[in-house]
């Protein structure tokens, strides 16, 4: 049997800088989606949302249903789409700036309510599209265009935050390790409930971390995926500042009720408008 070639390209010119980690993420995501489609997910049921940033341009480069929304709001948009049609597979793309600065409240609440979407955060640890300013995960001391003497703030550890927010699937990947990215995307997509995948992504133009990551990343599956303690231990191995090893892989995974199905189970198919009107007579 001949399978139709799955085309995931668009004719939108790519404007990422050569060598940017975003290319690896694009390639890995295409592979993951291809595999999803091959194993039965209808292509038309896949939707991605974008934020505003270099990272979110991925939506223009993918021949999939997409909605590029506002800066910081990619997760909210994805949540709305999933609630609108729970049959859809929804991926929310965004950068660390959109995710952890502008839109951090949406991240925490989406995790808390266990909405069934997959969030993919490109972490280049600064605002790139606005030409390099510090974000919540910029290492202390880094000189950026808005911190010429070095950032004075300690970075936030987003994985710790997600564990505390009760996210039901948390993973970290590195954009240069394409096969891992692909597998984690597939695992996150398969997970029923909120999945968060941080992808460490070097920005070659404003903060080139390729060597830094190459030296430090290692694959480390949490032996006890449902244990928050061991997840926290892994999450704390690297503090987003300087030294230390950087674990990759799934850090935490648990099953709990999904927001959309819980919500929709409250609303019956058959409506009774007249009954409601009667309460006014």
């Amino acid at each position, binding site marked *: 049997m001949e399978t139709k070639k799955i085309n995931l390209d668009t004719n939108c010119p790519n404007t990422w800088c050569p060598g940017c980690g975003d290319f690896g993420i694009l390639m890995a995501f295409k592979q993951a989606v291809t595999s999803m489609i091959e194993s039965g997910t209808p292509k038309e049921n896949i939707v991605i949302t974008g934020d505003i940033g270099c990272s979110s341009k991925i939506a223009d480069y993918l021949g999939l249903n*997409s909605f590029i*929304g506002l800066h910081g709001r990619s997760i909210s948009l994805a949540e709305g789409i999933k609630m609108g049609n729970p049959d859809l597979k929804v991926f929310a793309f965004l950068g660390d700036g959109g995710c952890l600065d502008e839109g951090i409240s949406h991240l925490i609440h989406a995790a808390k309510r266990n909405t069934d979407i997959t969030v993919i955060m490109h972490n280049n640890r600064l605002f790139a599209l606005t030409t390099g300013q510090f974000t919540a995960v910029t290492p202390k001391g880094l000189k950026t265009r808005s911190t010429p003497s070095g950032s004075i703030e300690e970075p936030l550890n987003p994985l710790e935050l997600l564990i505390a927010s009760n996210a039901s699937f948390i993973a970290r990947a590195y954009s240069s390790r394409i096969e891992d990215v692909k597998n984690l995307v597939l695992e996150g997509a398969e997970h029923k409930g909120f999945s968060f995948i941080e992808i460490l992504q070097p920005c070659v133009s404003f903060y080139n971390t390729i060597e830094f990551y190459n030296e430090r990343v290692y694959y480390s599956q949490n032996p006890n995926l449902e244990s928050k303690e061991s997840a926290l231990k892994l999450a704390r191995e690297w503090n987003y500042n300087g030294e230390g090893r950087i674990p990759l892989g799934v850090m935490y995974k648990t099953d709990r009720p999904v927001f959309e199905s819980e919500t929709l189970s409250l609303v019956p*198919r058959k409506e009774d408008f007249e009954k409601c009107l009667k309460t006014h007579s």
Partner: protein
Amino acid sequence: MKKDYSIIVGGAAGQGSRKAGLIIAKIFKKLGYFVYIYDDYQSLIKGGHNFSQIRISDEFIAGRREKIDVLVAFDKKTIDLHEKDLNTKGILIFNKNKNPEEKGIGIDADSIVKHLQGKPIMANTAMIGGFLKIIGINWSIAKNVLEKEFGEKDNLNMEIAKQAYDSVNTLTKIEKSKAKNPEYLMTGNEAAALGATKAGLDIYYAYPMTPASGILHYFAEHEKDLGVVTIQPENEIAVANEAIGSAYAGKRTMVASSSGGFALMSEAICLSAISETPVLFVNSQRMGPATGVPTYSGQSDLLFCINPGPGDFENFVAAPSNSEESAIWTGNLLNWSWKYQTPSILLLDKELSEGTFSVSKNIFKGIRKEKELLWNKKGEYKRYSITESGISPLSFPGTKDALIKTSSYEHDESGLTVEENEAIITAMQEKRIRKFEEMKKIADSEDAIKIYGNKKSKIAVISWGFTAGAVREASENLGLKFVQPILMSPFPVKQMIKALQDVEEIILVENNTTGQLGVLMAMNGIYADKKVLKYTSRPFTIEELEDRITKAMKV
């Protein structure tokens, strides 16, 4: 002569004066009257003074009078504050056990409750029971309504009401009205919820903010009957963006907030506009700026709603004045949002949102879901295909052989970002402008403005939103013409000019400091001669309007 009575029921916050007011209103509705209830309370939970002013008439009414005929006082403060408003023949009814010294008709409310072993709060049931007897309502009518309100099993409240009813004498007799017997009593918020439901609303998103919260409470309470999924996200920004997401997925969505919370949705309104994703935004305005006066009235958001965000776009804005209009226009706006793929704004205010009005039965029969323009599934789908009307057929994710790409960036026909190609950028802007031209045709449709009163008068009074209800009545009493625009954007210029062509003087009445409708009219070449403004955060009374409009006419 026209029957027209006003009753105030007041007490401390938590004493249940609002509920009592509603029960009394329902009894008058049963007697065939039109009813309007003004609810007054402060932004606190316990300890403040609350009151409901129930006005009944055999004609439609949507404003309060200064003078009242009956005062039902649950506490001393109510007497102190409102006794002065009683007509010379007015009746004061009070809780005798709380105010033994008072002159008027005392009801042994606390003793009755104690005797029947009820809870202290049930004193308000006793007060209602006594009140009904005093104004000569038959027990059979009272019983019928009370049983419905308390639930059939609540014998205790019924016994309390009956004992209080029997404990006093009838002083006056309010007869049945010969009015048309309007069918329903509902607030503007409730009417908006029902109107939207009838126009096919699927999901309602909101973050609480008075006076818009009533819509959230109503949808949540009636989620099963109405079938509208009701969700409270983490803030207004999430609310608006989630609503846009659901609309992209093909579901009709509505969101609501008040002034400051509505302002937080500004960027999302722009997203709805450029991405052409339909969402109905409700702004139940309070007196601003910022937190302002949370539970009182103002009309200071009109100009903001006309221009709710940066960029060149137009959105619908409608400002109804009572519950019937609220239902109709919520339905209109939801349908039009989908027809024109645009954000719409329903502009309510505190008095409309929370005031209770009579609504006739056939209103909801006239509201239905109108179909949006859908892709015919021929050829390649392009979300933003350039069309003559500017409206591109919709399709939703999950549709085979269609890529639905939507964006907040300026985009090409297939929804991909464009920055370089000036021709495409120009064409997309012009496509949306053509759509706005189509929207303007709606402004020429006959319901966009209403005209009342003496059509031959050379003086026209103009007002909008809730204020229009009282201004209409005062203008009619003064023999003047009254004009009320309901659609504010696109502004019904042609209809307004026609309505005002033989008029020599225009008097504008608004509940704000700057006369915002006056500014909007001037932008459209219509100039008011005089302004009557009130910005005490309380609505106009009929008497006050008659007085101020008369004075304005003289200068």
